[in-house]
């Protein structure tokens, strides 16, 4: 049982504040993803949870007890690193067995040379071997136990790193961009395996990534971080439909959400949609919330600049007039075949229109406030 609670965590390196007062509750058994652009402080936050970095202020609670002054190994957390951080001079077996050995063998038994001969070590080693083999079977690396990490492929190293983390059955798994060194195909496969591992182990996972697709597909909840602050913590679908901040809206979803400023909207001769709030400066809408119609007065008009056919979907890049950016429109292949250069009108579903003020904060009209509540 280990829920994690972060209270007002702050951390700076010299003059630069990296984490600016983050508070976050992570439930027991939850898969929470910290997502954000590189340098936003998400990895630092993860290392603070692990105890590898000390926060300047604030508290870290794991399983209800404050672990501020506990060392990493006393926190009952395991971590998987981006570079896997396997020990290159040890075999796969020794890599995976190391955390068990450091915990179960006494100080004397771990001494170089003499430790091997001490009584009791044999029995413990036998138990460790059994557990390592069990973990290896689970991860399908049992046939690699005698190899050195240098002889393994990226995906195999990733599994060994997972094995080393799970073999001692920690209450919390921390993962720092574990898939970013893998090729695209393997990444999708490992994604599924990590989800399955989470389900099987049932412990708390905290997962750091800059890839919004990973965040969306894997997590129970996603925490979006930017410039050292948490912008929003929500379920993935909520994050997509109902972002609190323009930066969240732009980070989540591929292709990116369309953003047109009210000023552009008016100067392009389109009338603002009904229900636009007085403070609203930006209107944002997802590619699938736009339809293509004939161009006409009062509408947002543009010219098809390019067509991307993905088979299941066709994305149209529509250039707005006067070089005021492009809008991406997602259409079904059966619906329309648009050629580049064709003038079109854009019809936006008003229910899917998101409004943001000058600072990027979400503005809601009455129905949306009700819906959110």
């Amino acid at each position, binding site marked *: 049982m280990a829920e994690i609670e972060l209270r007002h965590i702050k951390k700076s390196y010299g003059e630069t504040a990296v984490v600016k007062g983050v508070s976050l509750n992570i439930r027991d058994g939850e898969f929470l993803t910290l997502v954000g652009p590189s340098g936003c402080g998400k990895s630092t936050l993860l290392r603070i949870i692990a105890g590898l970095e000390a926060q300047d202020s604030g508290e870290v609670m794991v399983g209800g007890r404050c672990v501020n002054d506990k060392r990493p*190994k006393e926190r009952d957390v395991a971590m998987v*690193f981006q*570079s896997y*951080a396997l*020990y290159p001079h040890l075999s796969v077996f020794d890599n995976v067995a*190391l*955390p068990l050995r450091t915990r179960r063998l006494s100080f004397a038994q771990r001494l170089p040379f003499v430790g091997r001969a001490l009584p009791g070590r044999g029995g413990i080693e036998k138990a460790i071997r059994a557990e390592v083999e069990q973990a290896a079977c689970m991860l399908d690396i049992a046939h690699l136990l005698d190899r050195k990490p240098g002889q393994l492929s990226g995906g195999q190293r990733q599994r060994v790193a997972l094995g*080393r983390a799970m073999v001692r059955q920690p209450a919390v798994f921390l993962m720092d961009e574990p898939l970013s060194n893998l090729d695209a195909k393997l990444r999708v496969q490992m994604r599924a395996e990590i989800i399955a591992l989470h389900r099987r182990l049932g412990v708390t996972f905290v997962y750091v990534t800059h890839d919004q697709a990973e965040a969306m597909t894997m997590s129970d909840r996603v925490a979006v971080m930017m410039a050292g602050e948490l912008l929003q913590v929500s379920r993935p679908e909520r994050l997509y439909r109902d972002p609190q901040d323009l930066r969240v809206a732009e980070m989540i979803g591929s292709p990116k959400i369309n953003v047109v400023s009210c000023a552009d909207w008016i100067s392009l001769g389109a009338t603002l949609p009904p229900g636009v709030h007085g403070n609203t400066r930006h209107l944002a809408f997802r590619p699938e919330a736009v339809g293509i119609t004939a161009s006409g007065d009062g509408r947002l008009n543009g010219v098809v600049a390019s067509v991307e056919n993905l088979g299941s979907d066709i994305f149209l890049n529509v250039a707005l007039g006067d070089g005021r950016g492009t809008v991406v429109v997602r259409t079904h292949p059966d619906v329309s075949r648009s050629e580049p250069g064709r003038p079109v009108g854009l019809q936006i579903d008003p229910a899917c229109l998101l409004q943001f003020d000058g600072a990027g904060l979400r503005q809601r009209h009455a129905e949306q406030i009700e819906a959110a509540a």
Partner: protein
Amino acid sequence: MIARFSDRRFVGRVARHAILILTAAFALLPFFWMVSLSLKPPEEIFQADFHFWPTAFHGVENYRVALTAAPMFRFLLNGVLVCAAIFALQLLVCIPCAYALAKLRFHGRDTLFSAVLVGLLLPPQALAIPHFVLLNVFGLLDTYAALILPWAISTFGIFLLRQFFRSIPDEMIHAARLDGLGEFEIIWRIMIPMTAPALAAFGIFSVVAHWNDLFWPLIAVRREEISTPALGILLFRDDEAGQFFGPLMAGAVIIVAPLLVAFLIAQRRFIDGLAVTTTR
């Protein structure tokens, strides 16, 4: 076409090797000369015409004198003892220092490292007098300790190992801490095995320097029974040096031989080790 191309490559290769052989010969000439002299009788050593192979083979006599006139084995043993002790102490000091300077964060670390760099600039000769006085105060002159202790801390070693330790990613150390290793265990189980080639390289520098050192033993030691090889060989150089040139050179060969043999044996492993670290 193809033939001409490979011809040109062949010529280039010959030229390259010719240059290499020439420079190697230049570097090895004094050594061959030493071996050659150690095999010659005294009268031939000072002859005007020169040939590498002696006309009258006098090697046996020279080496017999070299081995019997002075306790050569004792000198060699002293050399091994002193070099091993120096290297062991250096590792004991350098490895933790280098680890702290490379991987731990604490106040004053950069200042300390600057101090190490300053130490690197000081020539050991400049410290000879202070060391001598210090050893005198502790009554350690003319003992093994006098030969060993001044070299126990190697700023060069700290510097070299720090650079190697820095090249090990922080994530490796983070992983080790999470796996439950203490700092000394990280050094022993992670840092030392991963930088073994660097330690070997440092070992070569250290052993060669102190095996061949004449300057410091000359100052610190008088007694014959604790003389190092380089100092011991001076026994052959008395006023009648001319007579003793053959045995002197034979002694020099005997002193250099262990290092050569050791490195010929270690060379393969050494190069393998370097290759492992680069392809990792």
